């Protein structure tokens, strides 16, 4: 057994999974409340990565930031999350809310339209070039080893821990706060929640804010770990995040996190161990999705919807 390869792929899978998990959370929360597949979510993630990049530039760039590298990273996270949270609220307000009572296909098409709009706006504004986070210059990437087989870098540690931290915060918000209780009530029965005095519009806006902010954090993480961002990066990442949400059981917050890590690990181990895996890792990821649908259509932690007949 090549333990070095095994642990290497494990760390890579967890890092990638952390990013997918953050994207999947947005998908699952919006679906839980609106039963809407927000296909623009991957592009919000891309915008988050770009906001992080421009904040870094504004702070003086990776070579000479006006604040310390780690503070710059914290500011990049905070601003990207705020901007994208606002963007999510705006998208909901103008693209989805007017269609809330329309047939379900209408907001779905609207979501695809918003996705293409965001992608092309990014292309128009920032061009198709790669933008470089230059994490090495910014925070000085260091690699730590345990024995001869286990290696992990400080950026990977940051990514995994920020992802877990944000998930815990989200879980606390949903389970311990009044707004969280309102979110759960809206998800369970929107009409009944409204009759109980819950402002549905506000709850939905807050859900979009949270989901989009998490996606932005994922975008900044991507830039920090993999170095480069580009205008079309949201499509594939969004698709993987959506797959993670479905594999975990769409509508389930723990399921989204579990699904994210599972997809990340599948991709990493497929690259490491399966034939042609480095080129065709996506083949194995989406094969997993199909197998999951065949074995457990509701996903790992999803529960079947009981319909009154």
């Amino acid at each position, binding site marked *: 057994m090549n333990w*070095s390869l095994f642990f290497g792929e494990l760390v890579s*899978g967890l890092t990638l999974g952390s990013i997918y998990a953050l994207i999947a959370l947005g998908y699952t929360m919006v679906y839980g409340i609106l039963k809407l597949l927000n296909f623009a979510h991957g592009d919000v993630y891309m915008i988050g990565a770009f906001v992080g990049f421009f904040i870094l530039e504004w702070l003086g760039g990776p070579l000479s930031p006006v604040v310390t590298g780690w503070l710059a990273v914290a500011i990049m996270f905070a601003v990207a999350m705020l901007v994208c949270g606002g963007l999510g609220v705006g998208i909901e307000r103008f693209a989805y809310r007017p269609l809330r009572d329309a047939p379900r296909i209408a907001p779905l098409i609207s979501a695809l339209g918003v996705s293409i709009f965001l992608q092309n706006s990014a292309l128009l504004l920032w061009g198709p070039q*790669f933008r470089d986070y230059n*994490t090495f210059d910014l925070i000085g990437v260091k690699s730590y080893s345990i024995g001869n087989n286990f290696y992990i870098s400080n950026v990977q540690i940051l990514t995994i821990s920020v992802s877990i931290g944000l998930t815990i915060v989200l879980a606390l918000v949903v389970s311990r706060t009044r707004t969280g209780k309102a979110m759960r009530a809206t998800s369970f029965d929107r009409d009944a929640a409204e009759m109980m005095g819950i402002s549905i519009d506000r709850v939905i806006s807050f859900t979009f804010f949270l989901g989009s902010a998490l996606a932005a954090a994922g975008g900044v993480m991507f830039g920090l770990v993999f*170095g*480069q961002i580009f205008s079309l990066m949201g499509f594939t990442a969004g698709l993987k995040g959506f797959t993670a949400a479905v594999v975990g059981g769409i509508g389930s917050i723990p399921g989204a996190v579990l699904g994210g890590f599972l997809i990340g690990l599948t991709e990493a181990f497929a690259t490491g161990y399966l034939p042609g895996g*480095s080129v065709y890792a996506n083949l194995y990821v989406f094969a997993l999705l199909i197998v999951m649908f065949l074995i457990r259509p509701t996903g790992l932690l999803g529960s079947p919807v009981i319909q009154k007949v």
Partner: protein
Amino acid sequence: MRKLLVAAVLAAAVAGLATAAWGAAKAPKRVSSASNAENALVKCGKTRLVGLMAPFTGPAASIGVNQVHWANFFKNAYNRSHKKKIKFVNEDTMLGSANGTAEAVKGAQALGSNRGVLGVVGPAGSNEVKATTGALKGAGLGWVSGSATNTQITLDGTRTGYFFRTVPPDSSQSKSVSAYITATLKLKRVYIIDDQEAYSTGLADEVQAQLKAKGVTVGRDGVSQQQSDFSSIINKIPRNTQLVYLPWQLPPKGKAFGQQMKSLGRSGTKLMGSDGLFDPLFSSLGNNVYDSFFPLNPADKRVAAFKKSHGGNSELFGGPSYVAAQVVVGAIDRACKDGKATRAEVRRQIKTTKIRASASLLGLPVAFDRHGDMIKKPFGIYHSVKGVFVRVA
């Protein structure tokens, strides 16, 4: 009533045909077939049009812009010293973008249908050369690339007499690379990662075969050009690997790979790129980085002049595009001696090009063999010293 309906339909059809015929008569003249296109006489006039195909934007823009700068450097110098002027018709190929080669094909079609264009400089990538062959050859245009190095694109006979290049082919590059790895660096364990494109896989195959023949243990893998996460594939590279060879075209990806190698504790492993990675982005990775590149003469006074006019940046990758422009414009000049030229004449003139070593930026004479390759075609090896590539072989 039925007769009235039939009459109305007939009248509409006649009106439609008439409108179409009128439209065709009014429309600007376009090239209608290959033989018409290549034999159509064009009045050369005071300003001659040359197509310039390069990745102005997209993932490969950093090297594309080098090529554009060098081609324009030639154009500006030429226009200053000649009464007849040259004007480039620019087409962005967006090499490496998600659209694949579609943008390059669109650009080639646009150049083909522009009757004033007599020859083309570019495109940059071998895949693009393959993809644009139909459009450029169909329009009778000759084209000269300053960076497409896949061995087969000149040898497969598909574009003989139409396509030429001012860079040596991969067969020459692979020999220089494998010789340097085995004879100079004396390495025994090498890992090759291609990027699944024609240029990359062709070069990787050749280097792999030559290294194996010299007793080197060679691992092989591939990545997609769209990929940004290389951590999983880096984990697969055995820890005792001495050098990773990356025959890639996108310097930002090469940099990302090198950075991820470092972050995974592999900073001791040497990296070697191909001509596509000959860029400050790749050399900035440190002293463990090598590259193979065209045999440009850094001592040429034009390199110094270019550097001076471009903020101190020599952008050597674009140098062969200067020579490509030199070849195309020279051919147009000769074809236009009587004031008129056809694309076929320009192609014939490209084929018989002879540029002396002293006049060639490459530091060697430029003349083409029957396949469209340069007759003399050595490749240089460079080593990154303090973030700058220095020729070592």
